[in-house]
């Protein structure tokens, strides 16, 4: 764990933090700009057992990934013994890196996901093209419908959202498809 250096927001120089207050307004020694600082107990928290320990004698259990290190926790996902290095605290549980990966795959709450694609906006753009790009709508409208079907269950955003927008865009794309298909059929019949 690195030592946190709190910097002045104007000149980026390190600030001398007060030891006894949680909130303070400090003047920087270098640029004299006043900076508001909120400090929290985590700043002084020391993580115990941050370095893996050696096995002392035969009676102790060892880490499954590092046999020479002493186990300090049991993985709540798979039951593996973990040393301090392999132990990942997660929501009051102790997990190994493999279990974290599995968790990521079936991440129901999406708390491990860091990238989201706004599929509803892509469908909106394709639905827009399907209306205004004349016969090219015959390509864009099915593309919009396909994307909506394929990614319907994917999370589009990390925050609460409604699916009404997507339903509207899909309806527009579907109508565009029907209209352009009918227009082509009518044109062929007339020919």
């Amino acid at each position, binding site marked *: *764990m*690195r030592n*946190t250096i*709190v*910097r*002045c*927001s*104007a000149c980026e120089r390190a*600030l001398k933090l007060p*030891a*006894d*207050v*949680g909130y303070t307004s400090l003047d*920087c020694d270098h640029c004299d*700009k*006043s*900076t*508001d*600082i*909120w*400090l*929290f*107990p*985590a*700043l*002084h*928290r*020391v993580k*115990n*057992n941050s*370095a*893996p*320990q*050696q096995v*002392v004698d035969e*009676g*102790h*259990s060892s880490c*499954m990934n590092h046999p020479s290190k*002493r*186990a*300090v*926790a*049991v993985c709540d996902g798979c*039951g*593996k*013994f973990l040393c301090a290095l392999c132990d990942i605290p997660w929501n009051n549980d102790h997990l190994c890196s493999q279990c974290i990966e599995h968790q990521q795959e079936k991440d129901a709450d999406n*708390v491990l*996901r*860091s*990238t*989201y*694609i*706004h*599929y509803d*906006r*892509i469908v909106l753009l394709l639905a827009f093209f399907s209306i205004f790009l004349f016969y090219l709508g015959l390509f864009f409208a099915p593309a919009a419908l396909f994307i909506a079907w394929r990614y319907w269950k994917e999370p589009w955003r*990390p*925050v*609460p959202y409604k699916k009404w927008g997507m339903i509207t865009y899909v309806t527009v794309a579907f109508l565009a498809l029907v209209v352009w298909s009918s227009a082509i059929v009518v044109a062929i019949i007339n020919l």
Partner: protein
Amino acid sequence: MLKMSRLPGRAVKRFGWSLERHQLWLSGEYLLHREISGYREEVKRYYYGDIQAIVSGPSLGFRTCNILCLLVLSLLSLLALAMYLTSASVTAYTLVFLGAGLSGFTLSGNLIFGPTCKTTLYTATSEAQLYSLGRRRSTEKAIARILPFIEAAQGAYAAPTPSTEPVEFGGITSEGAVPPPSLEDPPNP
């Protein structure tokens, strides 16, 4: 679980060719920092238990914008007045007046939104600038909403006291020998 809610403040930043929108959301367990660029969005979650410090200081944006707008406004206003008095074409001085109006509009908007600031959040492993908290007023409102969650997760701030417990580095403690592990030793699976 608390429903997520958006915190005050927003920002649009240019990174290379792309524009990024920045937002901050409050959840029951973490602070969510959203960076939205086109159809793609990157998020960072800062758990309340991990936040070490929040630092907010003034930035130059407010003053610079005010000086520039005021300068452009006065120059264009003088020019428009001179053109009006010298009976220049109506289109010309209307355009100059419009330019002056635009800079006046920007100036008044900047004054209404208030002073700018730069807010940085520190955790043990990272320091992140919260672009959405770029105005003093929205920063104060947002931090007032974040603080109870951090205090609930970490407790009230207390001055660090010299620890009576041995601090351990690589198996060697300040008291010498490595203490026995507290974990029961079940057989290897």
